[in-house]
């Protein structure tokens, strides 16, 4: 049977993979990809809950799905901004290694 738990596990795994990419990759684009993964994992979470959990009378039957569409839009906007920042960093450092971004060090 495919239950809610299966989707949650999948989204948790995706989240953790995305977290791994954010935390442990040196390339800024890879970090971005990780962020995308995290966001999409949370979108999956939302769809899953929408499908398997009976909504109360106060919320819409498709509120989960609507929420996930918002998330995708936000992800797109945020990716555009992040790519602009990375372009700026490339102008300055001629590379996009996140290890270089330590101006706020002690």
């Amino acid at each position, binding site marked *: 049977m495919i239950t809610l738990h299966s989707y949650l596990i999948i989204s948790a795994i995706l989240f953790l993979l995305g977290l791994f990419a954010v935390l*442990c990759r040196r390339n800024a684009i890879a970090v971005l990809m990780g962020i995308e993964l995290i966001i999409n994992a949370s979108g999956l979470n939302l769809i899953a809950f929408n499908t398997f959990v009976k909504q109360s009378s106060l919320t819409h039957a498709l509120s989960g799905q609507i929420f996930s569409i918002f998330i995708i839009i936000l992800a797109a906007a945020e990716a555009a901004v992040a790519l602009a920042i990375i372009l700026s960093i490339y102008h300055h450092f001629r590379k996009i290694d996140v290890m270089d971004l330590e101006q*706020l060090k002690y």
Partner: protein
Amino acid sequence: MEALKMVESFIWLIPVFPALGFIINGLFGTRFSRQTVGRIACGSVFLSFLVSLLSFITLLAMPAAERILHCRCFEWIKVGNVSVDIAFLIDPLSSVMTLVVTVVGFLIHVYSIGYMAHDRSVARFFTYMNLFTFMMLLLVTGDNILLMFVGWEGVGLCSYLLIGFWYLDHANNDAGKKAFVVNRIGDFGFLIGIFTLFWSLGKVSGGTIWTLNFADLAANIHCLKDITLNQALGIAHFGLGPVSVLTFVGICFFIGATGKSAQIPLYVWLPDAMAGPTPVSALIHAATMVTAGVYMIARLNFLYTLSPTALTVVAFVAGVTAFMAATIGLAQNDIKRVLAYSTVSQLGYMFLALGAAAYSAGIFHLMTHAFFKACLFLGAGSVIHAMSNKQDMREMGGLKKWMPVTHWTMLASTIAIAGWPLTSGFFSKDEILWKIFESHSVNMWHLVPWALGIAGAFMTAFYMFRLMVMTFYGECRADQEIQAHLHESPGVMIWPLRILGSLALVGGFVGVPYALGHFIHFPNLFEEWLAPVMGGLLYKAHVIVPVTAHAVDHAAAGHHHIAASEYLLMLLSIAIALLGSYLSYYLYTRRQEVIERFVRTFSTLHRWVYNKYYVDELYELVIVQGVKWLMRKLAWFDFHIVDGLVNFSGRVLVWFSTISGSVDYHGVDGAVRGISDQTIRLGALVKLIQSGRVQYYLMIAMGVLVVFVLFFQLGG
């Protein structure tokens, strides 16, 4: 009579006039001219003389048993049992003393105007002289022992100041210091005497009689008559215990008198004191200060009469002093030294009289001695002045033709001191010798001082005529230069000499002894005048033990019994005086070679006598070096031990403070620094968190999230 009684309230002026002169000359003297300074000084003494004369006349007008003028000025000390006032007493004894001091003092002040005419410190001289006169008058008019002691110390101070008057020459300063220090040694005895007397009288009377004034002491002295020192002081076992209190006190006071009045063993300062100006020698060391001891014992006659032992001690010391000083005077060549030793010797005679309980005879000799000795000293000053400050008699001679007045006045005084008949010195010295001879009926040993006195009288006549011959007769041995300057002294110096010389000749007629005077019904005025003071009549003293047969007669105010021995003794004195004088005159004018051969034959003896028996050297060796040795030992103690302790405690303190400091620095401050250090180290560790890398921050955030989730899942 009432008007004369008013004098009583003014007797305090007697010491105060010279005190005023002292203050005025002391503060402003340098601004006045020489004449003014001299006039102020002489004037103040003269005013004092007038008041003394007035009080003397007042006393004359009073009946004999009431002749006291007493003036209490104000309360001075009132502490516990001690109650002493500033009060003055004029009775027959002190009136004699004030008259002698003011008359002789006045004449010497006048003489000083001439003598010190070219000195640069005239104002200082007369200031000190007036201070001295003030102190001396305080001494003789004080009505209690403490006031007398103030004057006693004051005259000692003035003696020091005046001996060292020409202070630029250190020898003078040394002489002044010697005088003062030796005096002080005697004063220690004096003080012990005062304390013992005061304390004993107080204790023995059961705590009722605490007094230091003469009237009360005289009236109550009998309480101490048979008390020993042990009983008086209340101590069980004390070395001098069995001695009678009065004997102890009497000897203590006499020790003070040996210091002030130059008796053995404290006479050594007087010859050195000749370093001062001659008027000083005349006033202080001949006529007045040195007689303070005689006055003191006469004043305390009620005490001494009750202690024959003390009197014997006085008589013996006096006799030996009179003899010894006369021997030294025989061999001296400095004119002032001869006179100095003569003074010591004559003071011995005064004390000899006191030792025989013939107090009025002692005071009589004090008076006549003041006349002739002051005249002799002033005359010597005149000679020194003329000789351009040379004092060695070997360089004098034949001065008679240049200085006739000086010569005749000094001759008058010389025959007085030698004891030629009918001179003042004859009457007084003869009286003394008779009294001490007679007192051997009470104490056999008194013949020894008498013999010493007789021998001394012979030597006195001899050395005085030696002085006269060497100075005034024969060929002049001075340099041509000095001879050219020889001159008689000016009037201001001559007139005092004339007056004193005349007094030396005729002043003795107030004391003609009964043995001679009764033929023409001429009484012994002097003795009668002083009798109420000495016999206890005036102060109601209980004279229980008459020392001589004469004392009984005195009390009865009538001498009906004259021993033949008195006339024999008188003839003996005259014979000795004339023999001594003539022998000296003959040997020194015509037979100088006999003298020289004598000196050569007995050269060792002569050397000993000439060097004053080396007493000064002995004192220097034993006492001065002894004291210096003690001083070095005590200085070692002070330097090493006392200062060592101080230094040691200092070092301990430093050590403590070092420890305290290091505790403070390392401990306290270390804790503070330690905290800051740890904080920094901790910070150094913690700051590593801030790497500036976003991924690390996120990692930490995730880690904390995990912890929270676990925490809430597992524990809640």
